[in-house]
């Protein structure tokens, strides 16, 4: 299986013959190019066009992050899986408002189902989350009856507000508190951590979209403007609760990431390198975890699960099978 390369330190990233070379202040490391799927660049890394061309040739995706751990952008190599047919179908499902709303609802329903799974998991571990589960279940019922994507957005926003509020109960043994969800910039450590996890999920899904025939610029729930990636945001709705949030709770409840892993820069909070490394490690462990897939009749990893989800969307677009989002059962 191909791996993800995370670069935290400052240095140089370049092509050395047919190998990827990472040169830091102290050491130099080589990575076989065939074994790398994507590279996450967090540090101040110098790279040149020759390296970009190398990445393009080997179909490696580069995700760049800024000083605050904020997502900057992605080098998305020229498409190699090109299917005019799928792109037309994707556009068709966007332009037809009924089809678009139907798909958008499916993403939200999947997201809510996974949110509920996460809450139930912690409910079973003695956290009193009944009121949140109740409030969310009431809102969940109205998802099927909304008549526009805008309405759906608002509804999903309300569900998320309850969900984020519940973080304080789940994390009541820790010093972390979430007052309000604030993204740009994060105004407390927990917000910084949520954003960091989410951007990892967004980019992971983008990496997998690259391996399918889907065009990441055409999304259904998030507004498409053909200038930025949106399909990965749609799909991330489903995976954020089970990938990013579960990792976050594990790390904070086990006291792995602590208050001093954050830096306060005039009211803006940022996860320091140690914290990022720990988060990424736990996140990668999660993606490598496998479980038995009944239809495929073999074990699949959480990483592969993302790809399978994208294939299900393709089949929905073809008209073969209605898309049913993945819902975690544990």
């Amino acid at each position, binding site marked *: 299986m*191909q791996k993800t390369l995370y670069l935290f330190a400052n240095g140089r990233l370049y092509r050395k013959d047919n190998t990827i070379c990472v040169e830091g202040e102290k050491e130099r490391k080589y990575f076989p190019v065939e074994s790398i799927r994507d590279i996450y660049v967090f540090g101040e890394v110098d790279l040149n066009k020759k390296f970009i061309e190398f990445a393009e040739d080997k179909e490696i995706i580069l995700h760049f992050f800024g000083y605050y751990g904020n997502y900057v952008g992605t080098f998305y190599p020229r498409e190699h899986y090109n*299917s005019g047919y*799928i792109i037309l179908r994707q556009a068709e499902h966007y332009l037809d408002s009924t089809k678009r709303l139907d798909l958008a609802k499916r993403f939200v329903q999947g997201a809510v189902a996974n949110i509920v799974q996460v809450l139930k998991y912690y409910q079973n571990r003695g956290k009193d989350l009944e009121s949140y589960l109740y409030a969310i279940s009431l809102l969940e019922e109205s998802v099927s009856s909304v008549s526009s994507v805008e309405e759906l957005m608002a509804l999903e926003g309300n569900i998320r507000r309850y969900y984020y509020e519940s973080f304080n109960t789940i994390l009541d043994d820790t010093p972390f508190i979430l007052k309000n969800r604030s993204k740009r910039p994060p105004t407390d450590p927990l917000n910084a951590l949520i954003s960091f996890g989410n951007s990892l999920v967004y980019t992971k899904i983008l990496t997998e979209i690259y391996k399918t*025939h889907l065009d990441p610029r055409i999304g259904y729930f998030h507004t498409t403007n053909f200038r930025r990636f949106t399909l990965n945001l749609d799909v991330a709705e489903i995976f954020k609760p089970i990938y990013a949030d579960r990792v976050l709770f594990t790390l904070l409840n086990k006291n792995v990431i602590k208050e001093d892993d954050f830096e306060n820069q005039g009211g803006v909070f940022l996860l320091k390198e140690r914290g990022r490394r720990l988060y990424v490690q736990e996140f990668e462990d999660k993606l490598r975890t496998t479980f038995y897939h009944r239809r*495929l009749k073999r074990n699949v990893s959480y990483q592969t699960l993302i*790809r*399978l989800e994208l294939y299900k969307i393709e*089949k929905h677009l*073809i008209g073969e099978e209605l898309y049913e989002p993945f819902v975690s059962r544990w």
Partner: protein
Amino acid sequence: MDLLSTLFSLEEELSKVIGSYVQAFFICPRQVWLMSRQVCPDEDNIFLQIGRLIQKQAYSRERKEVHIEHLALDMIKRGEKTLVIAEVKKTSKAIEAARMQLAFYLYELKNMGIEAEGELLFPEERKKEILILTPEWEGKVEKVKQEILELINQPLPPSPHRGRYCSKCAYAEFCWA
């Protein structure tokens, strides 16, 4: 690619049969339908990579990959009487499908006015088979071409069926997701 040219290339795609469809048709018709929409298989699939490698490395001294109109021939050489075209395969597991693909090439070439003989090559097994286009083969090819055209013009792909090829197929994850 703009939408209009996408539409036209799609129409063209659904009106012609190519060699790989013929081969795939005997393995899995669903695969043919997907291929006709350029829904290509997962390139990370190890068996697919091995197949590509064999095709690239075997017989590297002889002439490789010739494209004539819609035909992609693995190898062309001069025989004693006629031209010889060869098709290289990883294994002889699906030999019937490979024979049909080669017969299809010979048939299409004949229609272009090119007379040729065929050779099936299995470098890993050090095996070779000669194929000559007989009227019987011609009849079979015509029938298959017709069946494939009908198949790819269906609005939906045939549903997946678990068969002996599924376990190593690069489409498996797509089919069973």
